[in-house]
Every structure is written in structure tokens, then in C-alpha cells.
């Protein structure tokens, strides 16, 4: 174990990332406090997943179990899923509906706001036992979080120092979130993927549009996303979030094939075709030319649009060496049966078994394994150039990844600017 300050950041623009930062249990412990419980907002779920008063869902922020529920007046509350008495899990079911939340261990009972309503035998029996006279239920509620609902997407924060949600997300992210939630959402189901690697290898992955046109031959060959497409990556003012966007009709098969051949990449496969191409028939539904977008919101979520396949990917930390990706697929309430069938068909491209995305699970794990003993070595992030971290008009870039690290280091109190050149 070592202090995170000992890691050398040889460049002040985060074009070098020390491998030790992905493998250090002390760093992980600090992340849970400074990043996930720091002045940030984490994605919880869609409001439509808990549509009725009393509906609740259990989620994670970092590795902290959190309950989010809807109150009688329709408002949302979230609290740590830990009894104020002896620390047990209060709400054990993943989804449900309840008038209140009672811990099974000693039946402490909490309101939908997280307030302690009462404890059994508080006064004891016949003057014996029970809690002290001055025990006040008002002091023993569940630990609550700030909650905001942005266009049907629920976020929460542990910190009173977090800026207002819309300021934290910033204008480009708010705009794209509104685009993806421009109609009432309907959830189609969930997928989970347990990846044996550090969670930050995944936040790197989704902030690196360059890999998408190399690691995933399916999407290159069938024109879903390739490096010859128009597009780029839009960053927020802090650079910690990004939206990688692809305009799928912006290149020709001939130009793409030639560009890949010239660059020496075999990702465009001229001898590979599909027997059933119905999966590839994307309908433009947002009034723009963007056919694929991957929006990474710091710290814990990705909003995905692969054609008409829409999903959120929530990062749930499982220790320094593992995380779960929790995928929530959705369409819109006014989708007809045909559109729903189309979205489900296109879901073949995403998730743990996705024709496009399965490779990411493998990519994270092979990095995690190889760097275990290489604390003093660094990854190289120079696609898109060095220096300023800003919006990119190309997909051949890793600059959004550097934006993550700049903000991460700020939260963690790591000073990379004084590092040796």
C-alpha cells in the first residue's frame, strides 16, 4: 500500500496515467469518499422505474448500497441502505412497494423520507429494559442524500458542497440528456455484467472513441461507428463528462474500406456479411444525424444510443479489482409493438453479449491483469494531441479520457502539475 501522492504523473496534461492508480486499495478507499461521496452527482435510475407512491429501488453509489423511493406526494428520497441501529441492510428486495421501511433485525421502522418512526419496546416492559429516557428518534434516521429529478432521470449526491445538478452536468450534457429523454421513457429490462477490473478502466474505455473504430469490427464493418465517420466528442466545462457522437451516414463504404486498409487495421472486414440485416436498419428518431452516441457522465453512468438501442450503464464498484455494469434498456411510452421489437433486436449489439460491446469486458480485464505489478509505469494517452482538454471534432482521440483524470485528480487532491517532466 502506498499513498496516491507517491504516484508520478510525468505530464501535467494527463497524457500519462500511472498504472498504480488502478490497483491500489488505499486509493479505492479514498475514491469512495472523495469521488462518490464528494461534491458530485451520481445516477440512480429513471423515475418511471418507481412510478407509484411507496415504490422503491435498491442501487449502489460507488460500493455504498442506496435505496431510492417515491413518497406519497410524488417526491423522491434516497438514503443509505443501512439501519441506524446496528447497521444491517434495511431494504433487502431490489424492487418493491412499501408504506415504510422496517429493518428485519430489530424492527426499527423508517418513513419514506428516511426518518425513524419508532423502535419496538422503546420503554421496555413493566419499567424494565428498553431505551434510555432521552433516546430521541429524531436523531436516528437513515443517512439521507440530496436527490434531483432531471427530465425523468434521478441523480443523488452525498455532499452539501455539490453544485446544483444542472451546473454539475453543464449545458452540453443537459441538452443531450433532454434529447434522450424527449418523451416519457419505458424500461424494457436489465442486464448485468460483472467485470474483473478496476472501475476506472471502464470510465477510460467510454471516454476513448478511438477504440470504438478498432476493437469492435462488427460496428466498423457494418458502418455503425468507424473512424472515417463524421462526429467527435463534446466536453463539459470541467471536461469530466463527454458525449462521443457518430454520424453514421457520413462516409462511403469505399472510402472507409480504403482508409482502414491504408492504416493497416483489419477492423473493416470485406469478407464478412450478415444473413439477416434487420438489426442494422436504424431509424433516425431525434431529428438529427447522430446515429450513435455514448455519453459518459462522471462518475458512474453512461447513456448509450446505438442506433435505436437506448440504455444506461451504471457502474457499481465491487472493490478495487471488480465492478458491475448494470444496464437499463429503454424505449418510449408511445413506441408501437414494431418499434419495441426493433429496439429489442438491436439490443443484440449491446450489453455483456453484445455483438459490438462484448469486447469491452475483455479489454478492461486484459489491461487490469497486465498492469498489476507496473505501479511506476504509465499508459499513454496522446490521440487527439497533448495540452488543452477541450471538445474534439474527430473520433480519433483520447482527450475526453484526460478530462476525466484532470477532474478526478482535483477531487482526490492529487497535484499532477508539479510532477517531473
Amino acid at each position, binding site marked *: 500500500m502506498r499513498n496516491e501522492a507517491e504516484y508520478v504523473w510525468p505530464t501535467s496534461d494527463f497524457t500519462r496515467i500511472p498504472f498504480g492508480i488502478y490497483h491500489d486499495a488505499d486509493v479505492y478507499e479514498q475514491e469512495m469518499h472523495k469521488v462518490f461521496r464528494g461534491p458530485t452527482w451520481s445516477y440512480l435510475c429513471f423515475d418511471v422505474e418507481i412510478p407509484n407512491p411507496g415504490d422503491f429501488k435498491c442501487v449502489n453509489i460507488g460500493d455504498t448500497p442506496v435505496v431510492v423511493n417515491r413518497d406519497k406526494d410524488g417526491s423522491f428520497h434516497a438514503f443509505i441502505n443501512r439501519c441506524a441501529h446496528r447497521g444491517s441492510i434495511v431494504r433487502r428486495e431490489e424492487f418493491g412497494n412499501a408504506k415504510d421501511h422496517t429493518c428485519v433485525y430489530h424492527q426499527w421502522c423508517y418513513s419514506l423520507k428516511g426518518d425513524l418512526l419508532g423502535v419496538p419496546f422503546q420503554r421496555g416492559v413493566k419499567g424494565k429494559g428498553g431505551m434510555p429516557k432521552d433516546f430521541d428518534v429524531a436523531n436516528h434516521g437513515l443517512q439521507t442524500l440530496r436527490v434531483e429529478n432531471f427530465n425523468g432521470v434521478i441523480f443523488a449526491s452525498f455532499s452539501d458542497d455539490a453544485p446544483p445538478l444542472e451546473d454539475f452536468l453543464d449545458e452540453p450534457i443537459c441538452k443531450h440528456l433532454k434529447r434522450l429523454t424527449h418523451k416519457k421513457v419505458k*424500461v424494457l429490462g436489465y442486464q448485468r455484467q460483472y467485470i474483473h477490473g478496476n472501475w476506472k478502466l471502464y470510465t477510460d474505455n467510454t471516454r476513448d472513441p478511438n477504440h470504438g473504430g478498432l*476493437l469492435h469490427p462488427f460496428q466498423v464493418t457494418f458502418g455503425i461507428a468507424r473512424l472515417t465517420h463524421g462526429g467527435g466528442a463534446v466536453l463539459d466545462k470541467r471536461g469530466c463528462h463527454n458525449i462521443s457522437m457518430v454520424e453514421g451516414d457520413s462516409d462511403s463504404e469505399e472510402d472507409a474500406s480504403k482508409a482502414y486498409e491504408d492504416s493497416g487495421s483489419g477492423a473493416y472486414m470485406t469478407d464478412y456479411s*450478415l444473413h439477416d440485416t434487420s438489426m442494422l436498419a436504424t431509424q433516425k428518431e431525434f431529428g438529427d444525424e447522430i446515429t450513435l452516441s455514448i455519453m459518459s457522465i462522471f462518475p458512474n453512468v453512461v447513456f448509450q444510443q446505438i442506433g435505436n438501442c437506448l440504455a444506461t450503464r451504471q457502474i457499481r464498484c465491487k472493490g478495487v479489482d471488480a465492478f458491475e455494469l448494470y444496464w437499463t434498456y429503454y424505449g418510449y411510452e408511445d413506441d408501437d409493438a414494431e418499434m419495441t421489437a426493433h429496439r429489442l433486436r438491436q439490443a443484440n449489439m449491446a450489453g455483456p453479449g453484445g455483438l459490438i460491446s462484448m469486447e469491452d469486458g475483455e479489454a478492461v480485464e486484459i489491461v487490469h491483469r497486465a498492469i498489476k505489478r507496473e505501479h511506476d509505469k504509465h499508459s499513454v494517452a496522446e490521440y487527439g494531441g497533448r495540452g488543452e482538454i477541450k471538445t474534439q471534432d474527430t473520433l480519433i482521440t483520447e482527450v475526453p479520457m484526460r478530462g476525466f483524470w484532470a477532474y478526478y485528480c482535483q477531487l482526490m487532491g492529487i497535484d499532477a502539475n508539479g510532477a517531473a517532466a
Partner: protein
Amino acid sequence: MTAEAKQACADLLAEYAYLIDADRLEDWLDLFVEESTYQIVPRENYVRGLPLQLMLCENKNMLRDRVVSLRQANIYNIHVDRHLVSSVRYLGEESGVHSVGANYAVFQTDQDGQSRLFSVGEYIDSIVVEDGAFKFKDKLVIADTSSIPTLLATPL
């Protein structure tokens, strides 16, 4: 007839498991009729009535495409599969369609020789006779293991 059909369905399930484990996926395709469906659904979605699957092939061509993609395009963890299929239940026949249920467990072994339970769940199958051979018409895999370790490449 019932005893024969029961045995033929059990044999089909055994062949199904054998051909995946032997990495003979092109031959494995022959166990499906042309108008067939193949789905892997996480149990948590199935129980809650949510339609999302982990893998959805609405016809045999989509199943062929899965196999071609695995061979040519997808990059996944190098491993060997081993299926254990048990508790095969023959549920009867109606209009030439035999209904069968079974439990499965799939273990994966990596290049270091480490074996791990990859997935456990059940099969709900509709089986028909085509040119004298029993073949899958609809195969529904319900994975109790809703959380997929690393990734799902080869069929369950």
C-alpha cells in the same frame, strides 16, 4: 411413441450441449429448423415480465450471424465451455410440437486451467420433427445467473 419422443428430445439436448462444448457451432446450427427462435433471458427480467433478453435470434439466419460474428469479428475471453444438462422433463406433445424443460450449468475453463461456474439456469424448449430428425423450433434459455461474468460470447 411417447417413450421414443422423450428419448429423442433428451438425445437432442445432449447433442446440443456436446456441439457447443466441442466448439462445433456450425454443426450446432443444424439442430435448429429454419423457422426457429433462440433467446437467452436473465431470470430477473423473465420474472418481472420485462421483454429484454441477453441474446435474441428471431430466425435461424440471426443464429447463423451470431456464429459467423464469433468466428470472424468478436474478440472475447479465450475459454472452453462445459455444459451439464439435467432434470430433463418431457412435458408432452401437441400438434407435432414437443415441450421439454431441463436444467443446465455451464462451466468455463480459462487458459490457466481454472474452471468457474459461468451460468446456471433452465431451458424451455419446443421441439419438432423435420425429415425424421428432432430439432429445436424455439429455445428459451432462462439464466438464473443474471450477472454475466465478464461477457457472454458462446451460446448457453
